[in-house]
């Protein structure tokens, strides 16, 4: 037991140590050493995670570690502890695993940046908080991690802080997340108030045995928690921060805004599954919001021209699919997609980073093209990941997406239709991205063409590893023979997703999904290879695609609905309320000033007058004393 505690502390604290080293000594260590320290600290965490994983996979016993009592107020106790069970260790595996790869990638990608040490410091801090989030044994410890990753996300989006747009994007991400965090906090308060505990295990027993608790409160708590998940995992209506978050360096987009942090919402919902299982109406809301988000984000993704924006909307769309599965109580299906998505989306982002690196910062796909020859490794790895995300059979995404759609079909046909259309659109825009970037002729400047080159090994190695994982990752949960479902079985005892046997319906569904994906790819092929179309310049975009290109004007709507009123309110306070208060304060000062200006005339320096006043005063006092008697 002590061994486990020490190992868990190593797991948690090595990234923090890396953070401290990079923060305090990073500059003097030099660029390479700083990167190596950052990477090593995460690799150590990964190794510890693997050992935990092997242990849990064998014993099937969750490990609980109590460090100390944290808050004690009458009968309300919160301890600071870790819960290492199947769910958290699974999350740790890809957080630290993909985290290590992305740290490795960053050594090369960020090498020309002056502040590379603080970049690695922030990345390490992020990993530290992400681990806290995942292993916390109660909602409050999880909340520390939850806030911490939000902070790191803010720091890293605004990493190139000299660009005001990037700062605005960072602030937007932070504020949007705060709205969600408020929901999460309210949920935590309600649960704490109802059950006097925040510990996951005790909550589960308490909620299961709670017959005298008003289900309305449970629903409110579940809804509040889901709002928190919406903020962190970029669901409607709080999704607009994620595409803007692409202002950060590309490794950050890959790690935080695609593979790990944005899946925290799914993690939390899976962690609190016992609560959501009891509130079917909230589950329906989750499913609908997930489905609608995946559809809306996919439509916006169709017309974006910034390579990272396409991937960002694709991430929002895929997260929507995961919530769709969560809404049907199919937690293991959602988790499966989280894992495969982490592989292929991290690979896609890192690949886009490699492209951007090769083109010296160009992100507009209209100025790319024909990169296949110059960047073969990037091309092949991204192609594999695109096939995976499009759901082409035998690649990992096929299995996970197919399971989500199947679950949807069994529960709610309209949402299945929405999800399927979103998947077809996914296939289309991913291959639009591939074709525009890698095929036909290069459309950039001559100078860029001259400098085209494949990225160095430190960049391509993580790409290759992730591409392999994106290919074979589906093997962890093959239909009919799912290792993942078996592994997670102790957690989701309710067997939320009934095993669909592989009947005719399933094969038909599978065929529909595959054909849909291929149709999407085919349309992209016809449009961008056969006809060699290049998307219009911004000014020439018209009609509905203009609406899509401008993201349904959601940002503008939010601006006029929320930002503008708040701004005018603050302006009102500044112009009227503050002026009033300050005129009061200044008025008092002015009166005092005026009085003393008059009063100083009394002090005319004539000692005789002073003495006279003194005697007069004394006479007055004496006569007063006599008269008072």
């Amino acid at each position, binding site marked *: 037991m002590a061994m486990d505690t020490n190992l868990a502390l190593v797991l948690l604290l090595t990234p923090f140590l890396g953070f401290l080293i990079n923060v305090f000594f990073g500059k003097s260590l030099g660029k390479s050493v700083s990167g190596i320290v950052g990477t090593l600290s995460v690799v150590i965490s990964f190794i510890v995670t693997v050992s935990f994983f092997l242990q849990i996979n064998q014993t099937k016993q969750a490990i609980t570690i109590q460090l100390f009592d944290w808050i004690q107020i009458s009968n309300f106790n919160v301890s600071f502890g870790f819960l290492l069970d199947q769910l958290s260790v699974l999350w740790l595996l890809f957080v630290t695993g993909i985290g290590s790869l992305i740290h490795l990638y960053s050594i090369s990608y960020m090498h020309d940046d002056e502040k590379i040490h603080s970049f690695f410091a922030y990345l390490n801090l992020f990993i530290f908080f992400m681990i806290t989030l995942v292993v916390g044994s109660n909602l409050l410890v999880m909340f520390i991690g939850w806030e911490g990753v939000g902070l790191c996300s803010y720091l890293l989006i605004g990493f190139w802080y000299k660009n005001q747009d990037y700062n605005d994007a960072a602030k937007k991400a932070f504020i949007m997340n705060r709205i969600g965090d408020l929901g999460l906090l309210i949920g935590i308060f309600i649960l704490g108030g109802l059950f006097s505990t925040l510990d996951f295990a005790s909550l589960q027993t308490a909620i299961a045995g709670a017959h005298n608790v008003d289900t309305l409160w449970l629903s409110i708590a579940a809804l509040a928690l889901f709002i928190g998940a919406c903020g962190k995992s970029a669901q409607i209506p709080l999704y607009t921060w994620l595409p803007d978050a692409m202002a950060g360096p590309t490794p950050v987009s890959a790690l935080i805004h695609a593979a790990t942090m944005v899946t925290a919402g799914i993690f939390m919902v899976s962690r609190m599954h016992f609560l959501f299982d009891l509130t079917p109406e909230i589950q329906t809301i989750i499913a609908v919001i997930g489905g609608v988000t995946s559809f809306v984000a996919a439509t916006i993704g169709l017309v974006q021209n910034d390579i990272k924006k396409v991937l960002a909307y694709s991430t929002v769309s895929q997260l929507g699919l995961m919530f769709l599965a969560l809404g049907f109580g199919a937690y293991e299906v959602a988790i499966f997609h989280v894992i495969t998505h982490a592989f292929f989306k991290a690979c896609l982002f890192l690949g886009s980073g490699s492209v951007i690196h090769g083109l010296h910062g160009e992100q507009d796909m209209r100025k790319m093209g024909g990169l296949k020859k110059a960047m073969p490794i990037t091309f092949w790895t991204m192609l594999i990941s695109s096939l995976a995300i499009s759901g082409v059979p035998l690649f990992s995404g096929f299995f996970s997406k197919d399971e989500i759609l199947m679950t949807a079909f069994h529960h709610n046909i309209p949402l299945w239709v929405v999800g399927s259309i979103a998947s077809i659109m996914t296939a289309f825009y991913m291959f639009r991205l591939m074709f525009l970037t890698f095929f036909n002729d290069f459309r950039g400047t001559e100078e860029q063409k001259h400098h085209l080159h494949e990225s160095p090994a430190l960049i391509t190695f993580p790409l290759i590893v992730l591409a392999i994982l994106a290919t074979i990752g589906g093997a962890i949960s093959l239909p009919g023979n799912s290792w993942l479902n078996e592994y997670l079985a102790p957690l989701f005892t309710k067997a939320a997703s009934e095993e669909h046997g592989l009947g005719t319906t399933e094969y038909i569904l599978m065929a529909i999904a595959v054909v849909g994906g291929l149709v999407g790819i085919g349309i992209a092929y016809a449009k961008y290879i056969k006809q060699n179309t290049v998307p219009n310049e911004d000014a020439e975009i018209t009609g509905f695609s203009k609406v899509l290109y401008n993201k349904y004007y959601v940002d503008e709507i939010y601006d006029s609905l929320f930002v503008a009123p708040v701004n005018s309110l603050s302006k009102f306070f500044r112009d009227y309320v503050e002026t009033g208060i300050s005129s009061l304060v200044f008025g008092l000062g002015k009166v005092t000033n005026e009085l003393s200006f008059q009063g*100083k*005339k009394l002090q005319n*320096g*004539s*000692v*005789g007058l002073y*003495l006279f006043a003194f*005697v007069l005063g004394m006479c007055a006092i004496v006569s007063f004393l006599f008269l008072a008697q």
Partner: protein
Amino acid sequence: MNNILTQIGIENYIFLCVTLFCIGIFGVLYRRNAIIVFMSIEIMLNAVNLLFVAFSTYHQDAQGQVFVFFSMAVAAAEVAVGLAILVSIFRNIGSISIDNLKNLKG
């Protein structure tokens, strides 16, 4: 008994003290020479001391006389300081008329 008050009545002391005190006050108010002002203040002080002693005898209570000792000691210290100030004023501006001391004008 051997009380001096049986020969000279207490009211005479009071008249004397009030007279002395008023002389002091008028000295302070009318004279411009700082030393004379200072002397006037001392007269006022001693008028009060005298009154203290007179009442002390009248009440057959030694406390008033004790108080006078304190008051005299303090007055002595005050005179030393006050005269020192006057000397240094004279050295600086060559005069001890209080009309010339206007540097503290507000």
